[in-house]
């Protein structure tokens, strides 16, 4: 497969990136990327971790290093690189690169390396898990046409996360423009979206609901609407279709681990049950006896999924589904993982923090359904001395604020007399709405 750099060079037209009011044309970024490759020939076939600073520099680094480095790690802030033999980009100083490999000066060398892309996702214990992809698997659903080239995409996700990278690659490889509004509040986002005449927008259902609360969304002329990262419910799909009757409304099923699964564009929640028997799709789909969705992508499957993959190559997505008539509907995660507006929360991690409180003897963290954010985190705790209930709640909240991200902190702490365990002794973390 051609490298990102060569694919962009072959496009009839490339777009412009706008971030914090600064415009950067992709043509200029391609030139900058070539300069980086020429300046650092020792990066050839090495592994590099890209620390995110701003969108233009991030995209320049992707163009420079795909097809040249053996591995690219997209490194979120506060995540350490997995081993020491990885170059940390941007460099702190030139001296930071120890050069033991003979230089390869020619930039035509780009394409000679099949680069593995690594993306981080949070693991059960809080340690990040690195999942491997290739440019081919990441762009399996990326299309190019004259119509797509005229679009202006908005970036509402962090570009080093799977959903954000999808938006960036789709915009780049279709020659469309891209406006970064990821770091702003909804009202400010709306102002930027209107100013840039954005026509294509990809966001989680929770973000869409927030944009709807601004009551200004209909002022945009959206032709491409994408939902992902959470279960897309029918009422939201209907609202968006009513506001934008001519738009292409799609919801995407994807994960950082398994990549893009499939896209549903018929305006209905879930996906057609006939897809479970369709052999012509890019992914094969099945429902297991435990009602988990099994997927078999065409592309390479990340090593981290080996334990979840059966002998026929189907990966257990650990998403619970239910077949109702002609539709397969999503119910939530089988693992108890909570999805707060697209942010993954591992109950085990939150329980560990709660149990640090000396007055708490047992803790159970689970999901409560929310019409605005999909799910919220709730905790049941058993305390040793009932007289200190209020103190315990305050103390726990303080500890949580120190050790957890905001969306991980229980929105409600219930003091209970009993916590259920299943026969194997495991906590029963069924969501409150099951």
């Amino acid at each position: 497969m051609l490298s990102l750099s060569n694919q962009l060079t072959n496009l009839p037209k490339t777009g412009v990136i706008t971030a914090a009011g600064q415009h950067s044309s992709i043509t200029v970024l391609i030139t900058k990327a070539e300069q980086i490759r020429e300046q650092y020939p020792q990066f050839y076939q090495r592994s590099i971790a890209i620390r995110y600073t701003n969108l233009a520099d991030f995209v320049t680094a992707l163009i420079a290093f795909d097809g040249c480095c053996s591995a690219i790690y997209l490194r979120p802030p506060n995540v350490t690189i997995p081993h020491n033999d990885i170059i940390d980009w941007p460099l702190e100083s030139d001296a930071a690169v120890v050069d033991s490999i003979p230089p390869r000066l020619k930039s035509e060398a780009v394409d000679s390396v099949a680069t593995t892309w690594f993306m981080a996702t949070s693991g059960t214990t809080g340690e990040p898990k690195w999942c491997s992809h290739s440019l081919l698997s990441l762009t399996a659903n990326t299309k190019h046409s004259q119509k797509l080239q005229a679009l202006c995409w908005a970036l509402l996700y962090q570009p080093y996360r799977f959903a954000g990278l999808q938006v960036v690659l789709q915009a780049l490889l279709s020659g469309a423009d891209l406006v970064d509004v990821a770091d702003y509040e909804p009202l400010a986002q709306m102002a930027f979206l209107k100013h840039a005449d954005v026509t294509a927008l990809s966001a989680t259902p929770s973000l869409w609901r927030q944009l709807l609360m601004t009551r200004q969304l209909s002022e945009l002329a959206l032709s491409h609407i994408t939902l992902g990262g959470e279960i897309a419910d029918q009422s939201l799909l209907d609202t968006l279709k009513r506001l934008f009757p001519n738009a292409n409304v799609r919801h995407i099923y994807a994960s950082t681990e398994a990549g893009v699964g499939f896209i549903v564009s018929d305006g209905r929640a879930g996906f057609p049950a006939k897809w479970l028997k369709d052999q012509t799709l890019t992914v094969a789909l099945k429902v297991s006896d435990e009602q988990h969705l099994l997927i078999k992508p065409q592309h390479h499957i990340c090593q981290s999924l080996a334990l979840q993959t059966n002998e026929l190559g189907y990966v257990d997505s650990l998403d619970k589904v239910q077949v109702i008539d002609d539709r397969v509907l999503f119910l939530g995660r089988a693992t108890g993982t909570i999805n707060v507006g697209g942010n993954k929360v591992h109950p085990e991690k939150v329980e560990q923090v709660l149990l640090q409180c000396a007055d708490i003897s047992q803790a159970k963290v689970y999901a409560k359904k929310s019409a605005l954010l999909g799910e919220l985190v709730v905790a049941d705790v058993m305390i040793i001395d009932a007289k200190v209930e209020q103190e315990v709640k305050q103390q726990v909240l303080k500890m949580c604020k120190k050790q957890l991200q905001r969306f991980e902190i229980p929105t409600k702490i219930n003091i209970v007399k009993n916590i259920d365990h299943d026969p194997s002794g495991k906590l029963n973390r069924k969501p409150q709405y099951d």
Partner: protein
Amino acid sequence: MLNLEQQIKDAMQQVAELSDCQLVESINPDTQLLECGLDSLGYAMLVAQLEEDLGYDPFTELALDTYPSTFAEFLAMYQQCANNR
């Protein structure tokens, strides 16, 4: 029994303290919800808190054509849900 408006304002205050948000000094009928000081997590918590206090969640129960954008619209939505019961 407190009136609905006061109950919502009390719940907002409670949620703001829990979620480390700073509410604006006075909330009027035409105050934009997104400018009250609560963020998306704060709103989701507010709706959950009110569901517990009042026993209903208009976002789930009503077929909403539009999402509330001002405090008056938010209150009207809860009022409508209460009247339907």
